[in-house]
């Protein structure tokens, strides 16, 4: 009955709060908040920004999903960062080397990406399951190490090609690309559709399949799951691999839809953004989508703020405030609901006389 309120009110409150707080920061730095917010919103209707935002959100979405799979199993996969970059470079190398007919080429690249993401996630997974190494440490280390591996692989001595001062993998032939969808003055990544399918599959897996049940059960209580026939180690392994597999897709929208090569200037940190997005979306595929869009919107608006000489750090600050205040708002609303409920029981009690029926309702034997 109050579900819309408990679900939607907190994010709205959080955004309002973030807007107010950032306004103070804007005023201190001598900017006009109204103009700043006007620009942030106005930019969405200019040029291809709206499409760019959705494109960027697609990447964040995949990253958020990858992180969320780990969270379902209580695994803190900080390693999405390393996994997606490893997968990207391996897939780009493979894709550049392959000569295949159109659709098959794309599928082959995606398979390579997923497998590579899984392979890189397998390291912390195996270390955790066999040696009990905390996945937090191992993925932090692997995130750093991946930079060395990429540098090694795209070295001109190995698989790299130098273009100007940039080095990257060989360009993927048109047969291996995913055509975009022209929309206004921009081009929407064709991968948006695949991302939506992945999101749907995530939802279905989690809520409708035996595997999803086992994953959630194991995440909630390893002991209860074990007594129910679910091996926590197996689930840890599979969840980490799945997470890595999805992480493998993170760079694909851009690789197959825009860049066609993975180089040293490729964007980093999508994996870390994924953590924030997954948390914002409360691990729900729909929530993650909204979180990804919001995040992408703030990112693109940062660029526009620069154009009117407003310090774009405001966008980062807003992102931080929103993450924090969304969860605070959830808690505040929860407490308000609790208090309201308590008052309601109190009133019912007063009306019904001393033996309120509510005791039995509450589950007392």
């Amino acid at each position: 009955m109050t579900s819309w309120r408990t679900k939607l009110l907190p994010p709205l409150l959080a955004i309002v709060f973030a807007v107010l707080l950032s306004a103070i920061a804007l005023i201190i730095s001598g900017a006009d908040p109204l103009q700043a917010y006007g620009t942030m919103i106005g930019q969405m209707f200019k040029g291809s920004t709206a499409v760019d935002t959705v494109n960027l959100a697609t990447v964040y979405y995949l990253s958020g999903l990858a992180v969320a799979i780990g969270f379902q199993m209580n695994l803190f996969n900080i390693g999405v960062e390393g996994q997606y970059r490893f997968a990207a470079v391996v897939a780009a190398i493979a894709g550049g080397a392959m000569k295949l007919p159109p659709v098959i080429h794309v599928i082959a690249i995606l398979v390579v990406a997923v497998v590579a993401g899984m392979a890189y996630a397998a390291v912390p997974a195996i270390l955790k399951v066999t040696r009990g190494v905390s996945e937090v440490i191992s993925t932090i280390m692997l995130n750093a190490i991946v930079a060395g591996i990429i540098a090694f692989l795209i070295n001109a001595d190995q698989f790299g090609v130098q273009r100007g001062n940039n080095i990257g993998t060989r360009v993927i032939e048109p047969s291996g690309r995913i055509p975009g969808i022209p929309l206004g003055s921009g081009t929407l990544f064709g991968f948006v559709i695949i991302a939506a399918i992945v999101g749907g599959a995530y939802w279905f897996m989690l809520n409708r399949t035996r595997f999803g049940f086992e994953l959630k059960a194991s995440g909630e209580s390893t002991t209860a799951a074990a007594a129910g026939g679910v091996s926590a180690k197996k689930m840890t392994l599979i969840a980490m691999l799945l997470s890595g597999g999805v992480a493998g897709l993170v760079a694909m929208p851009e690789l197959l839809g825009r860049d066609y090569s993975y180089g040293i200037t490729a964007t980093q940190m999508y994996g870390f953004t994924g953590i924030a997005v997954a948390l914002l979306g409360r691990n729900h595929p729909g929530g993650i989508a909204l979180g990804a869009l919001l995040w992408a919107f703030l990112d693109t608006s940062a660029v526009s703020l620069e154009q009117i000489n407003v310090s774009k750090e405001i966008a980062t600050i807003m992102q931080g405030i929103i993450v924090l205040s969304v969860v605070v708002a959830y808690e505040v609303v929860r407490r308000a609901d609790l208090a309201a409920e308590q008052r309601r029981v109190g009133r019912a009690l007063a009306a019904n006389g001393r033996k309120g029926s509510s005791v039995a309702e509450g589950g007392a034997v």
Partner: protein
Amino acid sequence: KDSSGGSSNNSAAPSSGGSDCVTAQKPPAAPAATSSSAAAGGKVDGSQLKIGLAFDVGGRGDASFNDAAAAGTDKAKSDLGVTTVNESTASASEAESAKQQRLDQMASQGLNPIVAVGFAYADSVKAVAAKYPNTKFAIVDDDSITLPNVTPLVFAEEQGSFLAGVAAAYKSKSCHIGFVGGVNTPLIQKFEAGFLQGAKTVSSKIKIEDEYLTPAGDFSGFQDPPKGNAKAAAEIAKGADVIYHAAGASGKGVFDAAKAGNALAIGVDSDQYNQKTVAADKDVIITSMLKRVDVAVFDYIQAVAKGDLTVLPKRFDLKVDGVGYATSGGKVDDIKDVLDGYKAQIISGAITVSDKPQK
């Protein structure tokens, strides 16, 4: 100073002292300077130009190539009467689409020309320039784009670094010098290549420490003074006494290490002797390899104002003073003739400097 060119004549005889290091003949004296800015000449009016300047990470104030680009537009404002310069700066780890968005917004606002600073903009410039064929674009440090409305502004960093190598070899007492690269990219390898070649040209027996902080793609190497410090200190501990860095902000750590280890250092990009953030170490900075992004940007704007881009050089090299060395502090005054001699040889083609490290 005993390391002046004079001793190089009897290089065969081993003896103590830094002078022994120099084994090559001192180059012939340079002819009187002939080069000058490419577009020198009559006054040009740029008041109609509205310029977009897209910085790489760091932006105005980074005391490096972004700042140099800004200096170029500042000069255009004062010398050419340019009134409008819109600036925008990339943030660390921003998405490729943000770069495109930045350029796209500039182009759609009617800014023309648009200067993109840094090869990280290559893909974005390529995409956006194709979309706005009537807008002129320039990109610093990249020449991979072949569109008619895109002008590459690239430099012969290896030539300037060659001179840094010469200076290092002449100034080293232990005949042992060092290079600290920030990130091992092709661009920084040019600095490395020129430095190595220059030093080896001067001395056949010089020892060179040659290391990077991080590999390609891990840009933290430009951001980590403590690591630059550790690396330089290690090179000094091994015996190197002149260190050349191409490590961006990590260079500060290199200078600190040189100062602490009684060694000398060579700066990069701008004249770091005069740079505020490293002022405490200025007495160890003997020279800096100058990369005149300001000159390139200014020349480009001037050429656009004139409507003739053909006057621009293909590469900003020693000949057009696109690269060079700094003399602030007077620490290389004693070998200025040597440096200018090599400079002349490079300009004349007598020496070709490779842009790939020959190890």
